[in-house]
């Protein structure tokens, strides 16, 4: 260790601006596996290589019975560096202990992207704080700083052949991303052992290494053939409880895959010591008459509040405008039709929802907005409505006349529309009610949907039916036209927002697709204004073709994006992607955890995010209290997140979960209200200190 320090002092003396690029320390030599010139454009993978003296070893991410894995902390620089990728470890017996690690040589790999980082024009400069432990029987820890400077170039990275060969060798040993050639299932978990069955889909059976040493011992499992499958029996340390899932590294030859085994079912049946015991009790009672009544009431209240949410308010205002001039009889008829529209839509959506549920699909409320087709349809609809409100076009009696005008079909469809646009705005009370609907039998579940619809429709009906309430409404006049025109702007705002949602679902191609569609639609209406019959026909053709073509293009765009990683809203600073294992680990350490269940199409979520969660104040509170902040993005269908929500009897977003510091008091997760304030976040921590 002293040598390292003196070496560092020496090196930094010679090159004051630089830490060393290679390190000689007791029993290890450390160097980079990096290109001579690094591509500015495409990400590359670099390695940090350890040459280890014979008989000595360093550690894998699960070090086994003793020891410690190396720690990597990239400090500064104009780059983004991915998480460490670990090559295949081996079991190393040291006395009576088993360690998991590496002998002779290994390299840890990191994806590096110089791309869109400020300062990327200059050279790559990065510094790594590196800590490791090298052991024979005795151990020597090392802590050092190692740097890397390389010029950036516009083309591909330029590698020295020998270095690249080594990099490729170690990279080939890191876990593969494709589907593994075997299935793992839990057979049995007791206080002494964990039995896992392996069904081999192709080739030979794997060696398995537990990734989390907290719950499974590192010793080789006992392997037995039972019928078609192979069972691996691991010993487990006593008294450590059970996580909800366990991860293993499956190894065959030079290839490896990481795989999870779900323990949730077993953990729940054991009852004690489960890492996350959610509020199951409420679902147990949910069959009770009393709680069903209160759920229906919640749904009804939630529906009423929904009228005030930013999604519904413009549509509702337009509807109000349209009834101002009408007679009371007509008004009543209109309002009932509107309510009927709402209830029918809720009934249909509810039935589809229940149908899919019984078919085993993991879905939740807002599922209709997880479809890019629906989003594209809504974009088109809002665009047409906005143009109409701005008096750009007279639609006359055409089918586009959805919201404003006075006719029965219009009122009914306003109701339909209200439900569709309401989906992104889960308001207070709604989460609980909809969550319960997901687990209740069909009849009461539908009851909850309808009760929500009744709440949504009732204010309009009341105003229409009760003259004294109606008198409170302003008198009709010229202002109505101005207001109508004004309301076009919130509608265009909605279009912009939906475009963003589509962009997240389909990538920038989706955004381009929708914009082109809107352009062509606008063009076709402009064409349609001319007197010429021929041009009018052309206009209709343009409109129909562009609509048809754009909807047909959706699956193609979708396909192209599903192969590349979908960029989601999770990449803002400090927030990590939802990962149950990470939560369990943080909980085990006693670290506080905050989980934001969100979706791009959920306005309430986005408001909370911008107004509270991502403010400096909130970030500071999270940082000061060392909170693991995690974001579960439900913009696209994701069964993992749907399942996580279901554990808390929810199936809509937003949901905000908080686990306090420490471990015992927090077996129960705290669910925060759906509309957040800064003080709520601050109170989470003030109470405890």
């Amino acid at each position, binding site marked *: 260790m002293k040598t390292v320090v003196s070496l560092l002092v020496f090196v930094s003396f010679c090159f004051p601006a630089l830490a060393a690029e290679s390190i000689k320390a007791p029993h290890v030599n450390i160097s980079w596996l990096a290109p001579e010139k690094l591509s500015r454009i495409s990400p590359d993978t670099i390695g940090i290589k350890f040459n280890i003296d014979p008989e000595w070893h360093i550690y894998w991410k699960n*070090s086994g*019975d*003793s*020891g*410690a894995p190396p*720690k990597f902390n990239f400090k500064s620089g104009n780059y983004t560096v991915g998480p460490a990728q670990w090559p295949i470890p081996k079991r190393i017996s*040291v*006395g*009576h*202990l088993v*360690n998991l690690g590496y002998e002779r040589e290994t390299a840890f790999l990191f994806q590096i992207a110089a791309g869109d980082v400020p300062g990327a024009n200059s050279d790559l400069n990065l510094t790594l704080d590196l*800590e490791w*432990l090298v*052991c024979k*029987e*005795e*151990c*020597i*820890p090392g*802590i050092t700083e190692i740097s890397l400077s390389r010029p950036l170039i516009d083309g591909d990275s330029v590698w020295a052949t020998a270095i690249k060969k080594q990099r490729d060798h170690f990279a080939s040993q890191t876990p593969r991303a494709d589907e593994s050639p075997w299935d793992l299932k839990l057979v049995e978990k007791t206080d002494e052992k964990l039995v896992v069955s392996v069904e081999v889909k192709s080739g030979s059976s794997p060696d398995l290494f537990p990734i989390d*040493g*907290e719950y499974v011992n590192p010793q080789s499992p006992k392997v037995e053939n039972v019928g078609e499958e192979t069972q691996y029996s691991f*010993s487990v*340390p*006593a*008294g*450590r*409880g059970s996580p909800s899932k366990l991860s293993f590294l499956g190894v065959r030859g030079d290839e490896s895959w990481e795989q999870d085994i779900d323990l949730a079912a077993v953990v729940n049946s054991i009852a004690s010591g489960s890492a996350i015991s959610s509020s199951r009790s409420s679902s147990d009672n949910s069959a009770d008459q009393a709680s069903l009544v209160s759920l229906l009431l919640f749904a009804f209240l939630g529906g009423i509040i929904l009228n005030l949410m930013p999604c519904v308010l413009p549509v509702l205002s337009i509807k109000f405008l349209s009834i101002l001039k009408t007679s009371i009889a007509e008004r009543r008829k209109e309002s009932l039709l509107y309510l009927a529209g709402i209830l029918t839509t809720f009934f249909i959506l509810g039935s589809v929802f229940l149908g899919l549920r019984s078919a085993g699909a993991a879905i939740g409320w807002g599922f209709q907005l997880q479809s890019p087709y629906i989003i594209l349809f809504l974009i088109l609809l809002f665009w047409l409505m906005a143009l109409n409100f701005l008096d750009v076009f007279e639609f006359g009696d055409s089918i586009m006349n959805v919201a404003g005008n006075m006719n029965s079909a219009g009122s009914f469809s306003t109701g339909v529309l209200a439900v569709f646009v309401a989906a992104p705005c889960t308001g207070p009370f709604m989460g609980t009610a909809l969550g319960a609907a997901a687990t209740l039998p069909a009849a009461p579940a539908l009851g909850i949907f309808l009760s929500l619809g009744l709440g949504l429709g009732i204010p309009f009906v009341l105003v229409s039916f009760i003259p004294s309430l109606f008198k409170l409404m302003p008198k009709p006049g010229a202002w109505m036209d101005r207001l109508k025109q004004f309301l076009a702007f919130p509608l265009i705002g909605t279009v912009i927002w939906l475009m963003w949602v589509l962009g997240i679902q389909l990538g920038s191609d989706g955004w381009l697709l929708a914009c082109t569609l809107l352009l062509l639609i606008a063009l076709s209406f402009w064409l349609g204004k001319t007197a010429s019959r021929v041009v009018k026909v052309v206009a209709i053709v343009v409109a129909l073709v562009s609509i048809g073509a754009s909807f047909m293009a959706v699956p193609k765009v979708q396909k192209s994006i599903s192969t590349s990683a979908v960029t989601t809203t999770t990449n803002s600073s400090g927030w990590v992607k939802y990962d149950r294992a990470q939560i369990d680990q943080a909980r*085990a*350490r*006693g670290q506080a955890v905050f989980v934001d269940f969100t979706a791009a199409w959920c306005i309430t979520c986005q408001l909370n995010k911008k107004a509270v969660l991502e403010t400096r104040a909130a970030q500071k509170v999270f940082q000061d209290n060392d909170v693991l902040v995690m974001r579960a993005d439900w913009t696209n269908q994701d069964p993992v997140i749907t399942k996580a929500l279901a554990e808390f009897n929810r199936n809509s977003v937003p949901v905000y979960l908080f686990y306090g510091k*420490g*471990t*015992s008091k927090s077996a129960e997760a705290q669910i925060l209200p759906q509309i957040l304030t800064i003080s709520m976040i601050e109170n989470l921590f003030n109470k405890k200190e």
Partner: protein
Amino acid sequence: MKALVFLSLFVAGSIAMAEAVPGKPAPAFETSAADGKTHKLSEYAGKWVVMEWYNKDCPYVKKHYGSNNMQELQKTYTGKGVVWLSVNSSAKGKEGYTDAAEAVKVAKDTKSNATAVLLDPTGVVGKAYGAKTTPHMFIIDPKGTVVYAGAIDDNNSSDPGVIVKSKNYVSTTLDAAMAGKKVEMAATKPYGCGTKYAN
């Protein structure tokens, strides 16, 4: 025949792997200490006992002694009537082995506040408890039941600088258990150097 050999090995293995498990009675022991006396677990009945596996040359032990963290813990809890036993299971010829005289000297030099330093060069006590690393911590309640087994804290770095940011499992467990509250985590994965038993 093979199966029988295998079975007997397995049984032998599981006996050797007997451990101090939270919620179960702590394994009894009787061993000599640096102070020249013989110490038995039974003589501490009615008292809280901390067992700290110890190896003066292990970097992770040095992390906690060099920073005075271990001595402070010993002082705080022996001050509250807790019996603190540092146990050295390094075999003769292995890293960290000391005879009684040297153990006394080391304890004095490091200003250890332990009640006693147990000498276990045969590894009998260490293996009975399943001590895998140094440090490896065990807490035993006045009835002789193990209430905690595992790491000293939640940061397996060898850097003493992280101690201030770490959550100390020994103090959190003792504070809770001695106040009659539920223990948050009764078992954790210990970290550190492997215990240097005889081969």
